[in-house]
């Protein structure tokens, strides 16, 4: 690779920021075409830390200190990796290489185009057809006598950011559709995203109208009329503008804006007030900064949380979804959702509404379908928003992050309602940024088709599906009262929490060291297994004895003798103590001045057991910086060893 100046640097020190004892390990740093790899020198552990280049958000080079030159890698999955390199020259080389490598200029440089998880052509094609949107539309009952498939956008003639197949009101003629598309920003005319069979009301989406201060369009008015008529149960529709009203009004000066209620009969306008992508970007940065504070007081932390505004924004998105879901499920009124271009806030609001409305989208496969539909097919600009390529930093924004977080907040409120666990959401988050699979590449369907991604890359969905046992929420039961029907979330401010699992997942001290869900999953599996075994035994005995014997099942108090691996043991604290450099050392007990050598006796389990959730292909999560347990067998990404080949030569 022409960008790698120094492929290997020895005697590098890696500072584990997540560990309060600030554990330092010495090892060798390798730069490969795709990864930064740090291998610990310690012959017993040889712990490896892998970082995919594209996961590096920025590389910082603070001033050189006497012991070497520092390098700080801030990753898109919110990990922070700090390196100390003996020679300044090496450090500069690594810095410039990484800066370049983390910002690919063309799609061909991306990992997914070289990533080969040893699947053959058929398997790859199968992986792409795993999620089938037309099957989902069929599941919700369309096409029907209210909604029909339109060919208006075939070959992306009307709108290049829309999918080619769309559902529109049956009464909408092609001319009306074309006219409406011309009157909508970027041609994104109203189309169906979710049809609620119980009430026959629907969720539709589009972009803002090009109305300016007084413009109107007969076709567009007809189009909305048709949308309304497609719901026999109601004589009006809600038009939800997810922007703050001021922003919507400001857009009128640019010839855009929102529907004039005088021109459109039978609509009710409703503004939600989700802020734009720029506000969200800086808000997320603030919340990352809060997570990075070294020893914040409770007040610092809460103040930081408040001033970031992040939870406020999450609440706004959830409120939007809740409003739509209530209109559709309780009032039976169809909702048309838009923002400016209809690919960020609109996607958020529609997909949150779907999660609330339909239990299917709370399953593992259902969430995949939902993201495929409302985000991927409807032209959410993944490559721009998640900076897959070096481009305009103003285009970057954590839009999907917010949707995933809304789902997480809901799963905290309804612990039994979701088939998946937090790990599933975090894995999706990682893959959105990692470009290891082609699923999230590009900005719209057309672009993906032009890139021939289906032939050149793999789909993440079937991969995640194979791992689904890791993503299952043990408390989920398809027939639970929380699971069935529409979710009515409480959106009071106190319901919103910082998503530690995402923002601090590298910070071992901040996440619970014991996971009840892992323990429960293991139990669930075990009891399933035991029951199967029992059934087999019973059959055998029946065969032997010639007559059936039944054992009545007994409920017994649980034994506590079984041992389980999932126990994440305690850590010795260092939070109660003063910094190592405290001048008062001598006065304070020894434990205040040395936290490392006393660690061993009381905490043999002081480190997390290897996370089962690591997928062997995903090297970006493989590098478990914070883990004290070296489990190389589960960590070395066997799939691409040859491919990466520590290209040191």
């Amino acid at each position: 690779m022409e960008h790698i100046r120094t492929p290997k640097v020895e005697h590098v020190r890696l500072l584990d920021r997540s560990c309060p004892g600030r554990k330092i390990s010495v090892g060798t740093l390798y730069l490969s075409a795709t990864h930064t790899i740090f291998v610990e020198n310690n012959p017993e552990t040889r712990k490896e830390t892998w970082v995919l280049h594209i996961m590096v958000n920025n590389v910082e080079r603070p001033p050189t200190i006497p012991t070497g030159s520092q390098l700080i890698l801030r990753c898109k999955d919110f990990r922070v990796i700090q390196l100390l390199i003996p020679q300044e020259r090496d450090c500069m080389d690594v810095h410039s290489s990484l800066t370049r490598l983390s910002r690919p200029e063309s799609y061909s440089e991306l990992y997914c185009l070289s990533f080969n998880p040893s699947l053959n052509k058929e398997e790859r094609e199968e992986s792409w057809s795993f999620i089938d949107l037309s099957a989902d539309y069929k599941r919700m009952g369309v096409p029907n006598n209210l909604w029909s498939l339109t060919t208006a956008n075939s070959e992306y003639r009307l709108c290049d950011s829309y999918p080619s197949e769309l559902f529109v009101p049956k009464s909408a003629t092609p001319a009306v559709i074309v006219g409406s598309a011309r009157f909508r920003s970027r041609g994104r005319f109203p189309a169906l995203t979710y049809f609620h069979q119980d009430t026959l009301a629907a969720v539709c989406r589009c972009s803002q109208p090009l109305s300016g201060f007084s413009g109107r369009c007969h076709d567009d008015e007809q189009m909305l009329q048709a949308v309304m008529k497609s719901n026999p149960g109601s004589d009006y529709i809600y038009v939800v503008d997810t922007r703050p009203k001021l922003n919507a009004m400001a857009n009128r000066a640019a010839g855009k804006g929102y529907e004039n209620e005088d021109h459109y009969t039978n609509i009710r306008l409703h503004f939600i007030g989700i802020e734009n992508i720029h506000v969200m970007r800086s808000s997320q940065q603030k919340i990352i900064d809060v997570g990075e504070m070294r020893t914040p007081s409770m007040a610092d932390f809460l103040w930081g949380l408040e001033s970031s505004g992040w939870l406020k924004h999450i609440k706004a998105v959830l409120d939007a979804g809740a409003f739509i879901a209530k209109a559709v499920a309780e009032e039976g009124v169809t909702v048309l959702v838009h923002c400016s271009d209809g690919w960020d806030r609109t996607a958020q609001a529609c997909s949150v509404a779907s999660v609330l409305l339909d239990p299917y989208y709370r399953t593992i496969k259902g969430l995949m379908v939902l993201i495929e539909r409302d985000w991927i097919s409807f032209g959410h600009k993944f490559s721009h928003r998640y900076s897959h390529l070096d481009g305009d930093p103003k285009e970057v924004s954590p839009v999907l992050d917010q949707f995933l977080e809304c789902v997480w907040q809901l799963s905290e409120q309804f612990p039994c309602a979701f088939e998946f666990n937090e790990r599933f959401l975090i894995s999706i988050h990682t893959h959105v940024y990692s470009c290891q699979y082609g699923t999230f590449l590009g900005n719209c369907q057309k672009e993906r088709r032009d890139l021939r991604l289906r032939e050149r890359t793999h789909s993440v969905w079937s991969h995640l599906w194979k791992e689904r046992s890791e993503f299952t929420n043990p408390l989920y039961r398809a027939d639970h009262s929380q699971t069935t029907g529409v979710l009515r979330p409480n959106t009071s401010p106190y319901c919103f929490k910082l998503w530690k699992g995402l923002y601090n997942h590298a910070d071992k001290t901040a996440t619970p060291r014991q996971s009840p869900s892992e323990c429960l999953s293991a139990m669930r599996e075990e009891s399933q297994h035991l029951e199967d075994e029992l059934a087999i035994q019973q059959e055998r005995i029946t065969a032997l004895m010639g007559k059936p014997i039944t054992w009545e099942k007994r409920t017994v108090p649980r034994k506590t003798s079984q041992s389980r691996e999932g126990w994440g043991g305690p850590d010795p604290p260092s939070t109660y103590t003063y910094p190592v450099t405290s001048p008062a050392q001598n006065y304070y007990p020894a434990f205040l001045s040395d936290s490392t050598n006393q660690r061993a006796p009381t905490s043999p389990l002081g480190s997390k057991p290897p996370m089962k959730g690591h997928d062997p292909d995903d090297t970006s999560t493989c590098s478990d910086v914070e883990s004290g347990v070296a489990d190389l067998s589960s960590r070395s990404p066997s799939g691409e060893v040859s491919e990466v080949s520590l290209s040191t030569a």
Partner: protein
Amino acid sequence: MKLPIMFVIYPEKNVLCFCSTTRTSGSSGTVTIKCKDLRVFQLDIPGMEQCLNIAHSIEALSSLDCASEMYPFFYRPQDLSLKNQWGLSNPVKDFAQLGESQDKWRLSEVNKDYSVCPSYPPVVIVPSAIDDDTLKKSARFRQGGRFPVLCYYHRKNGMVIMRSGQSLAGANGKRCIEDELLLQAVIDDSDKGYIIDTRSSQQAQQARMTGGGLDLKSNYSCWSRLHRQMERGKVLQESLIKLVEACEDQSHSVDRWLSKLENSKWLSHVQTALKTAGLLAECVERDGHSVLVHGSNGTDNTLLISSLAQLIVDPHCRTLEGFLTLIDREWVQAGHPFQKRCAHSAYSHARLTQEAPVFLLFLDCVWQLWHQFPLALGFSEALLLKIAKDVYASNYGNFLCNSDQERCALGVKERTHCLFQALMRPKEREHNSNPLYEPTELAIWPSTYPQSLQLWRALFFRWTQHFRQLEEAQEEIRNLVIQCCSARQNTERKHT
């Protein structure tokens, strides 16, 4: 007998209610009842006079001053007998736990008539080298007569946690040889110990002006002092009031909520308590030194951190029975003035200067441990919530009065039922146990990073739908565990 009838009709609700406000319009009125468990009721009552009467009765009955008129003395369920064993803590049993160190310690009955220290139980454990006269002299040198006593013995290394009231050194730096001897007897000559003072050193110095103060280093050469400032009394009470106000805020602004939450400082108090308890546990478990804990009175923060530290290091305290015993020993027997501290909960008037939610803070800290170590504690969140309610208003007598002496005078042990025994009855037991409990011998070190500490939503939002969903999750966990067990059991039976 109007009183018990009122209570029998709505036993749970009426006992709890604290303040009622009345609004009348025309011929009907509204009574708002704010309960100590943070519930709020509104009763619309036809007839103004009736409404006022009801409000007046509730007001009077909910703020009884005399403990013997309280409900526990009238609570007579059919399945409990007054002859049942009362209480869990037993100094003789605790002494037996000392094992091979028994010769170093002894049971003293110096306080058997409560004359040496009114807030201590009749029997305490002290170093065997110290005779009762020395104890009496030491008691005179300690606030409230609370001379240093053993509260925890760490079997792994033989180190102990002692607690006491502040020394009465005063401005002139008085000393008390007997007190020094007593502390010296706790540690071996070559060893050293720590004194954790729950006040800042400035506060401790100031206390000397009013006759209190700190044990001077020159007189206690083997002991090193550590000061950790913990808020007390009024500050804590105001914090709770602000927090509950914040929780009741109907506004939909996240900013407002977070700023009110921060402003209440409740979570900061939780953090400080866990940090200080962590320090204490660290001294004993990792550093291998004995510790004496005290603040001013030794009846509030002292008990808070000594009991938390025991949960951190002692696996036995983490079982259901062990935890209830811990509360009995370290709070009830040790003389936390429950009647003064837990009279009115969050909806209290400013004039109640003695009111302070120290015990609630303890339960919150325990919940944080429970939240961070979901498998390590043998009891359930439901148990913590139950105790949080009972401490303010209960059918049982355990939290009545301010000390063992007062309880004896009223005959609490003879005339009321015991909560701790009731919670361990077979039918209650399952609900109060943690189905995921997996005993561990290791210390459970809590993280005190702000991100790790959570608002105890199940307590402060107990009466919302939100809580119902969390309860369902707990039920689901219980079911899963039962399923797994019965599958195991069936297979085992099959094999045999």
